[in-house]
């Protein structure tokens, strides 16, 4: 069952619980990965500053250098500085570690981002990436001049599949003729492959590429910038956070599909400080909660397209449209379009 963190968020003011401490463990990307770790840390920092907490004692992060660090890092925070009240594990890779440590420490609360752990003292935070991806798919589908659009994924995981299928569904909803070229780099850190894939997709006529590939996406931006500089009219749609800067100075970022991990982290921290840990719940952030969506920067998107985006946003929030997450759901979705 899905329930959203509405109740907690309303009661943000007032009595700060004495000695509340919150911390997070990053995955190997570290807090400056320009992705969800960074976003999470930004949320935690905002929370810390707003509530007058002390960095490194009341709120802090630990970075993992390899996968085997997740568990000891979580365990360290359970005991460190007298023990943290709420500990975030950032990223689906930490699912198992959070599950184990939570089981061993029933008196500490945990939260996991991007995955679900069913335990009384764990709050799961997931995002409806397919919803946001659907909207940028609408943008791409309407704006393509060549009827060819690219999608570049990092690893072919269930998570990234949500981006892909939501995106394709968005494209097809507004432009059934458009063709989406999909390619996975097999890595989130291979800029050269990202560039080569973008080269191949643009070379085959694509004019907009949506990437969900971490640092591999750097190569996508680079390729687009190169082409833009030569006069080609190509675009990139960024991911996770506003990637406007990655497209500068050639200004190739059409928009970005942002995932407000910061908001989610900040929100849950607030709730927890006020005594509502949402233990055992799965907080799903979608369009409705502004958990996903288009970034602030979308100057290049004409108004009529933005209007369409808003229409679809409403439909999704209403439940009239349910963007697909998996390949199978996408197939059904396509069939329903006809």
């Amino acid at each position, binding site marked *: 069952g899905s329930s959203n963190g509405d109740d907690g968020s309303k009661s943000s003011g007032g009595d700060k619980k004495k000695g509340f401490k919150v911390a997070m463990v990053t995955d190997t*990307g*570290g*807090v*400056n*990965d*320009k992705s969800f770790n960074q976003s999470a840390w930004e949320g935690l920092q905002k929370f810390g500053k707003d509530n007058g907490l002390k960095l490194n004692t009341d709120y802090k992060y630990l970075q993992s250098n390899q996968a085997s660090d997740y568990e000891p890092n979580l365990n360290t925070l359970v005991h460190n500085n007298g023990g943290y009240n709420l500990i975030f594990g950032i990223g689906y890779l930490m699912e198992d570690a959070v599950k184990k440590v939570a089981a061993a420490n029933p008196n500490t609360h945990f939260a996991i981002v991007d995955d679900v752990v069913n335990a009384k003292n764990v709050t799961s935070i997931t995002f409806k990436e397919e919803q946001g991806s659907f909207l940028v798919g609408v943008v791409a589908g309407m704006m393509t001049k060549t009827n060819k659009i690219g999608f570049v994924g990092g690893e*072919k995981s269930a998570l990234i599949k949500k981006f892909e299928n939501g995106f394709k569904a968005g494209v097809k909803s507004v432009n059934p003729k458009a063709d989406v*070229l999909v*390619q*996975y780099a*097999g890595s989130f*850190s*291979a*800029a*050269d*492959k990202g*560039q*080569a*894939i973008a*080269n*191949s*997709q643009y*070379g*085959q006529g694509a004019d907009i590429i949506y990437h969900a590939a971490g*640092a591999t996406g*750097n*190569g996508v*931006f*680079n390729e687009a*910038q*190169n082409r833009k*500089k*030569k006069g080609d009219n190509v675009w990139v749609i960024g991911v996770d956070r506003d990637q406007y*800067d*990655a497209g*500068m*100075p050639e200004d190739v970022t059409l928009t970005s599909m942002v995932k407000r991990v910061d908001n989610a982290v900040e929100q849950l921290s607030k709730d927890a400080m006020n005594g509502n840990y949402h233990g055992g719940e799965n907080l799903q952030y979608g369009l409705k909660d502004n958990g996903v969506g288009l970034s602030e920067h979308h100057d290049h998107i004409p108004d009529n397209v933005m209007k369409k985006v808003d229409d679809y946003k409403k439909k999704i929030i209403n439940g009239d449209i349910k963007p697909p997450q998996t390949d199978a759901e996408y197939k059904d979705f396509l069939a329903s379009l006809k």
Partner: protein
Amino acid sequence: MTIMEILEIVIPSAILSATPLILTALGGVFSERSGVVNIGLEGLMIIGAFIGAVFTILFEHIGLGAASPWLALLVAAIIGAAFSLLHAVASITFRADQVVSGVAINFLALGITVFLVKKLFAGSGQTPYIDHRINKIDVPLLHDIPIIGPLFFSNIAYTSYIAIILAFVVWYVLFKTSFGLRLRSVGEHPAAADTLGINVSRMRYLGVALSGALGGLGGAVYVVTIATNFGATTISGEGYLALAAMIFGKWNPLGAMGAALFFGFAQSLSIIGESIPFLKSIPDVYLLIAPYVLTILALAGFVGRADAPKASGVPYIKGQR
């Protein structure tokens, strides 16, 4: 897609991704030809990539504009050479096991650069993006030539030409100049060179320093043409691929270039493969591993045995028999 369309996509892309490998492999050739094994190419590329990013940003900051990445390449080459001197001191002067020292270089480069990035950019794990890259261009006039124009003169960065020209230059230097003859002699038979008054240590220092310069250049080129910023994972395995290219190319600059281009080509082919209808049905893992399998097959099939420079890896001790 027609074959030509495929090639127009594959070849420029192959050349682009091969460029850093070519440069670094050329560095490897210098070092190993002088008799110093260089497993540290990965580390040298990391240093180069770091410097490439940081100095481009710095130069942009002080208003050098489009010249920034070019100047950064220069700095990367210099710092790369300086950093490689650690390997030189260890393996030449202190007669270290060269493999160990190379491994240390790799560890050290990664540790230091990530440490410094954090110090320089307020705790960030990576540098900001650079604004001025070295872009792919269509070479004026030449790109209009039918067939070869679109393949070799379109969508290509000048750094690629520099790398290819450098391969020929290195070949010329190694095989046609007295410096090259002396460098190779030191890698083959240092005692012989010594008796002819050639300063073995100095030649080896030069060989290693050149490998540092070229490795640094390779890493920096990767950043200014491909990655556009630097982080811990920016260089992950490229140095080892360059090492493989050098061996694949039998310690010959042109061979190393060919091998690097082959790697690039295999990768581009595997990428475009997913868009070619007849290859599309192949599970993508086959395409992912294709470049590596092809390399092994090529080595086993027709390249075969390659002999390293004879004294490569052996510290030279004057008067020892």
